[in-house]
C-alpha cells in the first residue's frame, strides 16, 4: 500500500514537472518570455524532474547534509531559488526603469531640438 502511494505521488510529480517544462518551452517559443529569464525555471524544473524519477536521491542528499526530514530540503531549496529569482527581477526592473527614464528624456530633448513654433 505504502509502495503504491509513493508510486502515485511519483507519477504525479513527474507529470507536473513535465507539463511545467512544456509550458515554459511554449512561452519561450511564442516570445512571451526571454530565454535569459527562463533559464532559472528550466533548471529548477529539470531538478524537480530528476528527483521525481530518482526517489532515493532526495533521501541520499538529505542524509548527506544531515537533514532529518527530507521533504524540508525541497522546501528550503525552492524558497532559496525563488528568493534569488526575485532579486534578479528587482535588478531587471531597476535597469528597465533607468532605460525608460533615459528614453523619455531623449524624447523630450529631441522634440525641443526640432525648434520652437512648430505645429503640434
Amino acid at each position, binding site marked *: 500500500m505504502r509502495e503504491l502511494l509513493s508510486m502515485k505521488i511519483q507519477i504525479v510529480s513527474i507529470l507536473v514537472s513535465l507539463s511545467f517544462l512544456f509550458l515554459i518551452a511554449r512561452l519561450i517559443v511564442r516570445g512571451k518570455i526571454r530565454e535569459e529569464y527562463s533559464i532559472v525555471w528550466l533548471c529548477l524544473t529539470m531538478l524537480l524532474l530528476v528527483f521525481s524519477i530518482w526517489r532515493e536521491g532526495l533521501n541520499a542528499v538529505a542524509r548527506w547534509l544531515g537533514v532529518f526530514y527530507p521533504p524540508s530540503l525541497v522546501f528550503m531549496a525552492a524558497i532559496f531559488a525563488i528568493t534569488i529569482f526575485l532579486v534578479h527581477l528587482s535588478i531587471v526592473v531597476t535597469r528597465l526603469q533607468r532605460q525608460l527614464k533615459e528614453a523619455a*528624456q531623449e524624447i*523630450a*530633448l529631441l522634440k*525641443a531640438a526640432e525648434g520652437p513654433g512648430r505645429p503640434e
Partner: protein
Amino acid sequence: MVMKTLIIIPAYNEELSVARVIKEVQGLSAGYDIVVVDDGSSDRTREEAKRAGARVLQLPINLGIGGAMQTGFRYAVRRDYDCAVQVDGDGQHPANEIPRLVSVIAAGGADVAIGSRFLEKKGFQSTFSRRLGIRYFQFLHQVLARVRVTDSTSGFRALGRRALAIVDGYYPDEFPESESIVLFALRGLKIREVPVVMRGRQGGESSIRRLISLYYMFKVTLAIIFTYLRLRKGRI
C-alpha cells in the same frame, strides 16, 4: 565673464503658477534663457508655459523631480551653457534672487550655489517638523560629506560647468536635493550657500507631503548613505 545661463523650471501640474514664474524671470535684466520641463503633467502646464513664451521640454511620462531636472541639465550641457539655475514652477523661489546665485558661480567661488532660507532666517521658514528634518540632514551631510548646508532640501540652486558634467551622468530620480549634496561634495565640488528669502508655495503641492514625509526621511537617509558608499568606491 559673461555666463551663458539657463533657467530650468521643473513643473508637474503647475498650470496656476508656472506662467507667473516665467514672467518673473523674463522681467530680470540679465535676459536668461528659460526652459520649462513639463514632467508629464495632466493639466495645462505646457500650454501655459508656451503662452508665457518659454521653451518647453515635454516628458512623455512622469519621471519625478530628479528625472525632470536631469532633462534640463542635459539640455544645458548639450547647448553648452556655463550655468544652470533650478527655479521651481510653484513660485517659491523668487526670481530676483537668481542673479545672486549666478554671480557666485560666475565669480568662481563655487561649483554649486544653493539658496538657503535659513542663513539669514528671513521670509518663509517652513514648518517646525520640516525644519527638524532639515537639521537632521544637515547633520548627515556634515558627518558623511563634510559640508555644512543649512537648507539641504532647497531646490533653488545654480550649477556651474563642473557640476553640470556630473549631473549629466547621474542625478537621483526621487527627492534629489539632499542626496545630490553628498554627490557634489564627494566629487570634490565646492558648494556654497547664499542667503535668500523664499515664499510659501503659490500653487500646487509640495513633493514632500506629510503622509510621505516618514518615507522621505527613510528613503533620503538610505540614498545618502548608499551614495556615500558608492562614491567612496568610485562607482559614479
